[in-house]
């Protein structure tokens, strides 16, 4: 066991699965990096280096660079999965789903159902999401709510290096199409991550801390913000449960409902747009199924209904943070 970054944890998960199962292949733009050129062949490992080193160990038959043709190579992942491979394909930024979404939601997600249960489509699409990189409106979106909307997809949003590794291994072994959302500002976050292979099951929330006054449900990078908020509130004598669902689809509604039954208050924190969002989703499930337990209005903390701005000052104001979560907890207790 050693400290590993979120990036290293994901890399290690993929490498271990590639060692275990020769049907696991990796592809995407510059996933090796350097194809066709005269310089280093493993130059990039993807734009932020997550797949770096895989080419060296597994060779060009299993680590493939692609043209900038997302429909073709994400679609190829679907076709490969349906015929016996287990591809781990990269859709660099989640924002790029718009050029290839058909292959994800009309093909991968629906094969099994449309074909009457006769298909399995074991593929993982890795993609980066989130604001904080000063990358502006088309490179900073969260968008997992749109994938969560679609039946047939599984959607994974790891909030730590430890979870990232275990959830990635689970995703690669899973027989359904999995969309794996990596938060781009967390790649350098470090923590102790076991060297051995391990899985974390989907649909099992991580209850990060238990409190009595309010439940905070948060996703991905927002889990850290929720923790900070809970720390701050604790000093004022307000104790919060913090729940990290880890996967948005399947969603561990049981755990969420139990925590709300205990605390009677709910704050949902989601980095994405507010409308038809994960904040909406969790709130509505609780308003339907744990209504009686609720002692105050549900509070949602999200980005505003606006694209992500470029300017650092605006972007910092845009993203939910611990202060806003603290305010929301206070509001539901008021």
């Amino acid at each position, binding site marked *: 066991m050693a400290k590993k970054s979120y990036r290293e944890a994901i890399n290690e998960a993929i490498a271990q699965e590639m060692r275990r199962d020769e049907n696991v*292949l990796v592809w995407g733009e510059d996933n090796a990096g350097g194809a066709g050129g005269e310089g280093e062949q493993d130059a990039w490992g993807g734009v932020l280096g997550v797949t770096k080193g895989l080419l060296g160990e597994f060779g060009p*038959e*299993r680590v*493939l660079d*692609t*043209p900038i*043709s997302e*429909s*073709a*190579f*994400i*679609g*190829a*992942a*679907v*076709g*490969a*999965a*349906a*015929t*016996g*491979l287990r*591809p781990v394909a990269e859709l660099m930024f989640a924002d790029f789903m718009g050029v290839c979404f*058909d*292959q994800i939601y*009309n*093909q991968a997600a629906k*094969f*099994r*159902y*449309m*074909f*009457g*249960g*006769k*298909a*399995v489509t074991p593929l993982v699409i890795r993609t980066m999401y989130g604001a904080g990189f000063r990358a502006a409106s088309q490179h900073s979106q969260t968008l997992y709510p749109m994938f969560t909307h679609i*039946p*047939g997809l*599984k959607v994974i949003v790891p909030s730590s290096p430890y979870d990232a590794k275990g959830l990635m291994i689970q995703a690669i072994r*899973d*027989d*359904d199409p999995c969309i794996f959302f990596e938060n781009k500002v967390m790649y350098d976050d470090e923590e102790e991550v076991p060297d051995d292979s391990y899985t974390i099951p989907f649909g099992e929330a991580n209850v990060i801390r238990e409190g009595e006054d309010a439940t905070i449900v948060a996703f991905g990078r927002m889990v850290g913000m929720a923790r900070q908020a809970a720390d701050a509130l604790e000093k004022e004598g307000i104790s919060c449960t913090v729940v990290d669902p880890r996967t948005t689809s399947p969603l561990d509604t049981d755990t969420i409902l139990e925590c709300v039954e205990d605390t009677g208050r709910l704050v949902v924190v989601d980095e994405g747009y507010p409308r038809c969002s994960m904040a909406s989703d969790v709130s509505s499930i609780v308003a339907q199924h744990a209504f009686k337990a609720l002692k105050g209005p549900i509070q949602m903390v999200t980005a505003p209904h606006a694209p992500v701005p470029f300017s650092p000052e605006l972007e910092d104001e845009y993203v939910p943070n611990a202060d806003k979560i603290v305010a929301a907890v206070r509001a539901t207790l008021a």
Partner: protein
Amino acid sequence: MQMNREDLLKSYSTMRTIRDFEERVHEEFASGDIPGFVHLYAGEEASAVGVCSHLENRDVIASTHRGHGHCIAKGCDTREMMLELYGRGEGLCGGKGGSMHIADIEKGMLGANGIVGAGPPLICGAALTAKYKKTGGVAVAFFGDGGSNQGTTLESYNLAKVWNLPVIFVVEDNGYAEATSSSYAVAGDQLDRATGFGMPSARVDGHDYFAVREAAGEMIERARTGGGPSLLHVMLDRFFGHFEGDAMTYRAEGEVQNIRDNKDCLKIFRKRVTEAGLLTDEQLDKIDTDVMAHINACIDESKTASPPSLSTLTTDVYISY
């Protein structure tokens, strides 16, 4: 490439099966029994069968909204297909897919598809599986003149070439995408497009089974032996409308009759093989009778078969349920 008698009989029988399947579905649709959107392949049989007569179970095809012919040519069970068209529980997809989503992955049939241009990317993946696993298999994407304008298709030309995949892109050009003529909507030339992506290509008369078979055979052989992708441009015609219910007012007067009279691939096949003394009219007539009886039986059964159990509404969404 010589075909023996058995192969010839089989090819004729498959083409006839497609034809009768479609002609009977056309009639039954009119009577209101078959739900949904149905796009018929009648008239285009020589393409599906000419290409698929080279294929085995290790080979994979991807089809379109006009998929019945490809399914039958790739070996899907016609009885189960018909049950599927009627939305029955014993249909090939349990009644959940219908005409536009018939698939049989074990047979290498990766699905009809409701999205124009969805097949080519998928088929690149199937081809990669074959290449990586060294099965010697090839992968064939069928699509129409209309589908040749979808970006997903064009991207796939590039990917197939860059990855040197065993793919054959088959453009079935029936002159129309819905009501829009390919002379309007397809700029340039399909073969020049292939050249643009460094792929060999050929154009064939899709009413001529033997021409299709020969051209496809070469491309499939090239793909099997590591030579990469090719594009086959098949010129053909559909007998019916875009979908059932289409009044076809966009077609010239007498256009369909002329096609039926002079460009019917089944008639052309029959003439060719009987004149060459390879098969007799009696042999072919017998196939005609048997096939029609079989299709009628499929329809009779489908009409009264049970719908899927309502409990299947929410199964097959994931592996676990």
